């Protein structure tokens, strides 16, 4: 393997690992803030217990999100020096702004929230958790503005052998960035909701702390229903934007090889990359792809074969990931409608099999977010900045295979150990239930 492949593996692994923890931070932070608000408004002790129980799980997860994020910021420089030189004039700004606007706020007020129970007023304590929830989502905005620029570069000129920013507001208000941002945070909300519902279902199945977990489940289900609908709708708009600015990615998502008018979506499809065609295409829904991608049933969708073959991404992983993501997204809407309905009618304990489904569905939004990033990043290949700079030209020149092999090895060992520890703690404290005193 060469330095490019190893560096891609290292960055991909570090990013995907980071994104195990981040969505829960995004979603559960808001949920804990909602719980503390309910306590602040109603003075009902059960909401305080909920805040502390879910807050502790939030903290255990949070720290892994932090530490895995630091390495990403530095990897642009360590492994992708040529990329950093080429795009730094544009790409560095949102990263620096993210740290200044969001990270300081997030880390400061998390400390205040955690240590401030007896030190600050209840109102200030409530404000602290909202600032944590707000700033973690704000940091998502800035990092996704940076990522969106790699997908759809805007607001720049090519000058001095690099891309230079010509319009900051074009970069910040890029439609791609805002679609990506809203799609990503609502996906994080779904992760948070299923996390709360799954753990609540576990305890409800054992009839432990029934009132506590019924209330938690209801909060999770309400939040989850809204988030599941939103993530799906925004995902649809996002795909249309992809069709508009990244036609090779869209074609790979749907495994469309030949350009066609009124393109259907096949319910069953098996791509054959070596022959540049599909092995099986069955059960078409006529014109659906044209309709979804271009909002016109007769629109033409460009196939992969109409692009130079060195410009198209790996098709199978992108296609499969996209299918899995859309399938799961549909399932989340069905499950959250049922969850919300049963919780509202106080019928959860009557539907044990549904509670079991909700318990075992806990990992599904995690899978959906991971495959979502595979669509986004593998679908962008062979470009690191779509249409501007190839991944192969972006890597640091001074690195040796040995350097990257060593660091990748340490990452794998270290991250695995930390993940085991983190999951063990999450499971331990999730099963333990709420604190009786405190």
């Amino acid at each position, binding site marked *: 393997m060469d330095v490019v492949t190893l560096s891609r593996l290292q960055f991909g692994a570090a990013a995907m690992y980071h994104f195990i923890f981040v969505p829960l931070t995004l979603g559960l932070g808001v949920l804990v803030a909602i719980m503390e608000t309910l306590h602040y408004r109603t003075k009902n002790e059960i909401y305080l217990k909920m805040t502390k129980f879910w807050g502790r799980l939030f903290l255990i997860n949070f720290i892994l999100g932090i*530490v895995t994020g630091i390495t990403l910021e530095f990897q642009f420089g360590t492994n992708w020096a040529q990329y950093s030189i080429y795009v*730094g004039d544009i790409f560095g*700004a949102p990263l620096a702004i993210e740290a200044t606007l969001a*990270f*300081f706020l997030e880390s400061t007020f998390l400390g205040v929230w955690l240590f401030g129970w007896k030190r600050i007023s209840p109102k200030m304590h409530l404000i602290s958790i909202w600032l944590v929830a707000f700033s973690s989502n704000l940091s998502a905005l800035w990092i996704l503005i940076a990522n969106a620029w790699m997908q759809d570069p805007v607001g720049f000129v090519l000058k001095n052998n690099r891309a230079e920013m010509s319009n900051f507001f074009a970069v910040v208000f890029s439609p791609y960035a805002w679609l990506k941002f809203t799609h990503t945070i609502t996906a994080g909300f779904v992760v948070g909701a299923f996390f709360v519902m799954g753990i609540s279902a576990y305890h409800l199945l054992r009839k432990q702390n029934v009132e506590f977990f019924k209330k938690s489940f209801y909060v999770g289900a309400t939040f989850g229903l809204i988030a599941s609908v939103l993530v799906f709708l925004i995902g649809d708009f996002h795909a249309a934007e992809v069709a508009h600015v990244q036609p090779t990615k869209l074609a790979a998502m749907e495994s469309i090889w030949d350009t066609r008018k009124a393109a259907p979506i096949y319910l069953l499809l098996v791509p054959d990359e070596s022959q540049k065609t599909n092995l099986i295409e069955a059960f078409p829904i006529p014109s659906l792809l044209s309709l979804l991608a271009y909002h016109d049933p007769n629109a033409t969708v460009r196939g992969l074969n109409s692009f130079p073959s060195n410009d198209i991404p790996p098709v199978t992983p992108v296609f499969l990931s996209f299918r899995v993501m859309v399938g799961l997204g549909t399932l989340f809407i069905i499950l959250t409608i049922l969850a919300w309905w049963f919780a509202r009618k106080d019928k959860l304990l009557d539907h044990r099999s549904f509670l079991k489904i909700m318990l075992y569905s806990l990992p599904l939004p995690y899978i959906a977010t991971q495959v979502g990033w595979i669509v986004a990043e593998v679908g962008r290949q062979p470009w690191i900045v779509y249409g501007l700079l190839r991944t192969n030209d972006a890597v640091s020149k001074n690195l040796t295979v040995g350097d990257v092999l060593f660091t990748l090895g340490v990452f794998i060992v*270290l991250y695995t150990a930390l993940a085991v520890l983190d999951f063990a*703690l999450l499971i331990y404290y999730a099963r333990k239930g709420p604190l009786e005193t405190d």
Partner: protein
Amino acid sequence: MLNILWFIIWGLLWAMYFALDGFDLGIGMLFPFFAKSDQDKRAMLESIGPVWDANEVWLITAGGATFAAFPITYAYMFSFLYLPLMLILYGLIIRAVCLEFRYKVNNPTIVSLLEFGFFLGSLLPALLLGVAFGNIFQGLPIDQNGYHGNLITLLNPFGLITGILFVVAFLLHGSLWLSFRTEGDINLRAKSLARKLWFITLFFAVLFLVSAYFVTNLYNNYFSMPYLLIVPVLCVLGLLGAGFFIYSSEIMAFLSSAICIIFLTFTGVGGLYPNLIPSSINNAFSLSAFNSSSSQYTLAVMTIVVIIFVPIVLFYKFWTYKTFSYKIKEGKEEGY
């Protein structure tokens, strides 16, 4: 003009990082040796619990600002110093997790692993950041073909002196913070330790400042612009103050030590100017505030962001430090 401003901001961000994360890295390095009881351990962790994470953000901001303002320096600094930087990152990862999970685990084997991780994860960044900056002060072997060093060449005498100086200065800084935040027995022990560490820090600070004269070009700027000598003088005054106030004023001793670290950083950065990374082979290949910077447009955008938001950050960080400056009562630790 903006390039000069961003050069100063670059130095300031590193200085803020060392002055703030310095004391909690120091607490981490002291942890296995200083804490005699579980109560001591809880007090040490509580003293940094509410603030360490936000302190580390200065490093992320320094990295982000280097990327935004000096992308070419960012690219070369981090790719040339690949292995040391990765070791620093591993240290920070291990440390954060060990610190946060120490009181969430009951298994004694895992607890001692976590405590060791907290120590090692504090020592590695302190030492290696010192080594890295010691080498940057000397210049890196860079020419038209790139970088000609490796991890071993970084471990030269001056690099090691700077590394050890960082370690002992952070240990001193940490023990002064601990004395500020505690009372009773642990407070007295922190002070007596700080006194010993002060002499050691003084020794390495003098060694650093003297050897810098022989192996680096840091003093050239000070000789050509003598009024700049106020920077190293403030560094020395800070160090003297830290020693002077140990028993008379805990807060003054800590603040003096912070001033010492800030102006130590500025002594180095001021000597580097206009370079961020000098080439030890030929100054033509040095990365400077002018040849490695972003466009004027980007620098202007970032300047506006800094002017608006950094005061806000400083305001709420100051409020946090004020809120969490109470004396930790023995046996009544909060938090973890």
